[in-house]
């Protein structure tokens, strides 16, 4: 682990990042969370654990992922050079697998035989089902009934991998409800079950642990970028739902004062419309799913339904470390609308031959705007957190295209 400035060295021993984070769970889960924190503390101090993790990332995930200079995209923006950290090239197609590889090793170390996970877009569910298959562990993935409809291909992938996908019919039938249901499962089956949370939220130690696993993104990017250009990027850009790909990229650069950072939330149909998923831009601090953080809640403290074209950003909370980095003014949190993300999705596809995930398209939308206002010799590094194969059906449906053999093919 690289050294960090004191303000960025969180969380403290009880899992707090300033006023955020913590352990807000029912009593039944307290011991499980404490045992997890203790097990992770032990392993995190053991170089052999990290050697095993690194070996899996190299041989199974295919790391390091390259950085790529998007020359045609940069030229189209007419400003700074735009570089992409290619997490889309990872096994299973997104950054999510960095975390599930790490947590699966931990689960096995703790002697747990049953994995559970929540998923929104299905990427974390697929990444969990994947590591479960590899280690021969039973796997149950909770997924909102709404999301099951939106992300049918990923549901089938999980089933192929041997996982049981459990449809969650309560509440708004999306990611937050899947997380509630996973917490209920964990409380019920706490003896043999390991809960793989997919982002840097949840009770301590998840925000820290998931960050540590995802920091491979930023560590690699820092080395790769220095080697290529002899300097650090002027700005980093990443999308923020729960915020795991963003913290993974940002964290190893936090002490580098010259590197500006932008976390891009989902503005949905516009922040003013109320139909979005941007708690850091338009929410307030509160407590949900085990931690204190910025949340989308009404004046009575009820959690609001969210909207984003991207199922992976469609969550009313955000990791507590992001809440703290916002308050510290270290990272600027901005937002991109559905329409802006879709435009960026097409732009990267046409100019670079890379189909980005709709989540990552939010980061691209902001980066292209940012680039236009910067100098040509400046550099922006964007985390291309996932590939868009999973989204092509949804994009076709949104745009009224005929998703089939007749569209766009000259007869």
């Amino acid at each position, binding site marked *: 682990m690289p050294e960090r400035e004191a303000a960025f060295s969180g969380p403290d021993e009880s899992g707090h990042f300033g006023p955020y984070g913590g352990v807000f*769970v029912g009593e039944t889960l307290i*011991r499980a969370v404490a045992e997890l924190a203790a097990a992770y503390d032990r392993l995190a101090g053991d170089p052999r654990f990290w050697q095993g993790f690194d070996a899996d990332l190299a041989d199974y995930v295919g790391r390091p992922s390259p950085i790529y200079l998007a020359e045609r995209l940069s030229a189209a923006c007419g400003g700074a050079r735009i570089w992409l950290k290619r997490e889309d090239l990872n096994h299973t197609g997104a950054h999510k697998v960095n975390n599930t590889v790490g947590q699966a090793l931990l689960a096995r170390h703790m002697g747990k035989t049953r994995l559970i996970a929540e998923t929104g877009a299905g990427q974390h569910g697929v990444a969990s089902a994947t590591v479960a298959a590899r280690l021969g562990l039973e796997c149950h993935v909770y997924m909102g009934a709404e999301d099951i409809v939106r992300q049918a291909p990923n549901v089938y992938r999980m089933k192929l991998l041997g996982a049981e996908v459990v449809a969650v019919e309560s*509440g708004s039938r999306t990611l937050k409800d899947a997380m509630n249901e996973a917490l209920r499962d964990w409380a019920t089956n706490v*003896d043999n079950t390991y809960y793989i949370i997919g982002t840097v939220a949840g009770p301590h130690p998840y925000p820290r642990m998931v960050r540590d696993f995802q920091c491979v993104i930023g560590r690699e990017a820092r080395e790769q970028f220095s080697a290529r250009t002899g300097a650090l990027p002027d700005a980093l850009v990443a999308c923020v739902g729960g915020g795991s790909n963003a913290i993974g990229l940002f964290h190893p650069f936090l002490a580098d004062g010259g590197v500006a950072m932008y976390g891009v939330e989902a503005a949905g149909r516009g922040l003013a419309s109320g139909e979005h998923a941007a708690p850091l831009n338009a929410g307030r601090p509160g*407590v949900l799913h085990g931690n204190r953080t910025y949340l989308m809640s009404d*004046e009575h*403290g009820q959690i609001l339904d969210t909207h984003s074209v991207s199922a992976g950003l469609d969550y009313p909370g955000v990791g507590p470390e992001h809440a703290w980095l916002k308050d510290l003014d270290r990272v600027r949190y901005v937002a991109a609308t559905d329409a802006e993300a879709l435009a960026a999705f097409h732009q990267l596809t046409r100019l670079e031959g890379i189909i980005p995930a709709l989540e990552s398209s939010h980061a691209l939308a902001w980066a292209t705007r940012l680039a236009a206002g910067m100098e040509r010799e400046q550099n922006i590094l964007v985390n291309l957190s996932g590939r868009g194969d999973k989204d092509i059906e949804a994009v076709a449906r949104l745009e009224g295209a005929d998703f089939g053999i007749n569209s766009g093919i000259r007869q």
Partner: protein
Amino acid sequence: MSRIAGCAAAARESGRSLLIPYLVAGDPDLETSLALMVELAAVGADMIELGIPFSDPSADGPAIQRGVERALAAGANLRGVLELARRFRELDGETPLVLMGYLNPIEIMGYAEFAGECALAGVDGVLVVDMPPGEAGDLPALLAARGIDRIFLVSPTTTAERAKEIIEHTSGYLYYVSLKGVTGAALDDRESVAVNIARLRGWTDLPVVIGFGIKDAGTAVAMSELADGVIIGSALVERIARLPPTQSRRSDDVGEATALIGSVRRALDARCGGAGASETGKRP
């Protein structure tokens, strides 16, 4: 002595088991909740736990989740719950009232305002499911300053060291979660509940009541032998779910929903009055 402590002490003295029903405030609407609360007290509830509806009740099973959804659909919120408490208190000056819920609505209202409003409404105790003592901030002190009891949960997974710490922070009664899981699931075996509660008894004189998974007179009697009392939530909420809509409701429908609590009351009293009373482990 707080209303809760007084109620528990009187029950102990007379060798009677505490019976504490739980209902979701505003399920299906606030007027019905008020009628249910009055009826519950009339059929023998010693105290009432009033659930604060929250959009993400992650420690609750399906029955209470649906109750919460019904309440939210009818527009329930924390201010309405406090108003319901105040109206109940106007009608019933005796039965202790405990608010049970999740932290976010309280956090958004603000701890100081919440504690003040609880005191004005005549609330006697507060239990926040997802707020362990270590994360409670100044809420316990604000409640204590207004004479409101702080109730915390102890579960089968709670370590001895932690149970002692929880006891330090608890007043009113200690809520023993009888199972690993969510509200309304199946009970743990009697033996392990007995062992765990005997352990708690060694550390505190606080009344210990058992909740999560008590469905009927049979389970209530079995569990009551091990503790000072029992909490019945999901089973009651399921009966409330079957209430006809307000406009087509007959005068005795509310009574039918609460009849479960009346029958449990009679079963508990029969046990306490019977020959087995001396073997119950209850202190004089």
